[in-house]
């Protein structure tokens, strides 16, 4: 149960804009909600142009020198799925308890860390990260432990470039996870939110329609939740069928020297701080708001 935010530029061919700085502001204004961990995922399609055949497998490795610190490691792997090399690497990593696997990245850059968003910026300089859209998350743990593997955003190793941040609780997590695990999907954390990413991937592999994937999830999932999901072509905000958690969207037409963008967050204050206070509306319960590129 946390603070989430997302942002997408209206002109998505402007990948040189530091979207990380905007996300940082939005996250900081919601910091009061949660202080356990912070994380962001930013999408920039320039990253992928040069290497179509490879993508990165990202994971966090416990630092051998400093206790409680984690190093981000990105390993290049081939896109021909499933390559043996990749399967072996992942199984080796998932057995290593010093490692928390983040996911596969092509256009996406995902970083997460324990502590405040300030600490995250100090470590990864998120304010300078450029891209067309991105999401951010601040966590206050409800059930699973406070460690990097349970920090958001969540991604998967099944499909590159999907990230999910979630506020609330998927109460039938254990049932959904069992179903998906039975189908053969890997899970790397104990956090209920991971099931959203895996569920969406399962749906996307089946029919490729993000709207339908969200609708299916709303129908199958139980509990109070709002989540923001980002793929390389979309950014969406989804609320549960009873609308028990908050989730709002606003538009900045280009004020304060920013390019025009849409922003979404848990608290109104996060929209205000970046000037996204036009066409502000709450997502309807059980509905998704989707922006596509």
């Amino acid at each position, binding site marked *: 149960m946390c603070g989430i935010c997302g942002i997408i530029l209206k002109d998505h061919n402007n990948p040189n804009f530091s979207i990380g700085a905007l996300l940082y502001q939005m996250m900081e204004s919601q910091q009061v909600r949660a202080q356990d961990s912070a994380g962001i995922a930013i999408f920039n399609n320039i990253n992928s142009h040069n290497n179509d055949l490879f993508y990165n497998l990202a994971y966090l490795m416990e630092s051998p020198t400093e206790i409680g610190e984690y190093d981000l490691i990105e390993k290049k792997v081939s896109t021909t799925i499933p390559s043996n090399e990749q399967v072996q690497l992942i199984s080796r990593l998932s057995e290593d308890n010093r490692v928390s696997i983040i996911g596969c990245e092509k256009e996406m850059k995902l970083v997460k860390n324990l502590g405040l968003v300030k600490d995250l910026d100090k470590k990864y300089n998120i304010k300078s990260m450029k891209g067309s859209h991105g999401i951010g998350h601040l966590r206050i743990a*409800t*059930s699973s432990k406070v460690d990097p593997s349970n920090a958001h955003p969540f991604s998967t190793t099944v499909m590159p470039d999907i990230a999910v941040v979630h506020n609330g*609780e998927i*109460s*039938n997590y*254990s*049932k959904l996870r*069992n*179903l998906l695990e*039975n*189908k*053969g999907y890997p899970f790397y954390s104990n956090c209920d939110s991971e099931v959203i990413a895996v569920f969406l991937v399962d749906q996307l592999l089946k029919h490729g329609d993000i709207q339908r994937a969200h609708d299916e999830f709303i129908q199958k999932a*139980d*509990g*109070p939740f709002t989540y923001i999901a980002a793929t390389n072509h979309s950014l969406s905000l989804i609320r549960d*069928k*009873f609308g*028990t958690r908050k989730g709002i969207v606003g538009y900045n037409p280009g004020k304060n020297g920013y390019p025009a963008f849409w922003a979404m967050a848990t608290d109104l204050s996060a929209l205000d701080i970046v000037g996204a206070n036009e066409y502000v509306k709450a997502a309807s319960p059980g509905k998704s708001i989707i922006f596509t590129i």
Partner: protein
Amino acid sequence: MNPRDKFVIRSSILELAETGTPRNISIDDKLRNEHKEREIEKTINIWDSITALGAQLSRPPYDPYREIINLGISIGRKQCLNKVVLSMPLIIYDNAIKIEETSLESLHIALDRLAIDSNTNLGLISENEIKNRKFSHFKRINKKSAKVEDYDSEGLVLQYNDDKSLQFLTDIRREFNGPILVEIDDDFQKYIGPLLDTGADGVIADTIKITNNARYKGKHALRVIRDVRYAINQYYAGRENDGIVLMVAGDFNNTGRIVKSAALGADIIGYYTSLLIANAANHYEISSNIHTVPDRICRHILATKGELKGVPAALGYSDFYNLSPADLRTSSIETSLQADIAIEGIDKTYRQIIEELIDEYASEKGIEMNKEKKRELVVQLLTHR
């Protein structure tokens, strides 16, 4: 807590309240002495030793007055064209008991009334022909009498006896578009795959019959549910579950047991005993009256429906079928072993605890323990408990 324990507790507190001076013996010691004296073995009822984790802060509960709690379930897999939708996870199961004619009539009237007045569709398994019904009838058939005109019900129920049953299922599957439920015996692990391949829409496990057979002698109904569910999951490993239902029948005569078995993997419960009790409830009324008995059954079912909505809501679910074994805890080792339920306070099953202790032992001694040996150790420790 039996009434005798209550008296012990009460008398002990009253002693204190009347004198205000220290007692000779505490409640716990007194209870212990009492049990020793009367040689009461600490027998634990497996059903009662299971409780569920309610929703509090880490998961907010739902409120049946504010949110809609779903109890409806659709029976029928992909290949089944005319699916049957029940409003509650209950099917009245005949349990091979010969029911008296008037009781049966009252039951039919009650189920009709529930469907019409209360919009509550329950299923009924019976081999009789039921005309002008408003509820879903699952007709019990066997090989010999199967003719196309016999399929006048919403669903069919057949018994698995041997390999010929599969052929029979294939035959009726071709002619019948509604859901077909197959009743299994204790040998289910062998044939559940072919059965589902052939097109069964659901399996019925009569836990009383199964636990009477050699393979499940001394085991609890919960063990049967767990095993059948496990076998079904195995069948679906690596593919999409297309909506198979597991119906269990047996001693599920109250909401607590319905909820617990649903959490362990049952989708539908065969229900009967409580209705008989409801039927005979007003003992001062000597002959059961054809007009009042259906009323009582209806009221009983509606109250049960309320409870079945209340419990998932209190556990934080808006859908009854989201209950899972992770929601259950037990206060008995025996239960934990039988049904793989985590023990309260530690959140691990007894088997997991033993496995961890073996790992701990191995790492303390610096022994490499292979999986084979570890499994053998676990078995030894669990059997010589």
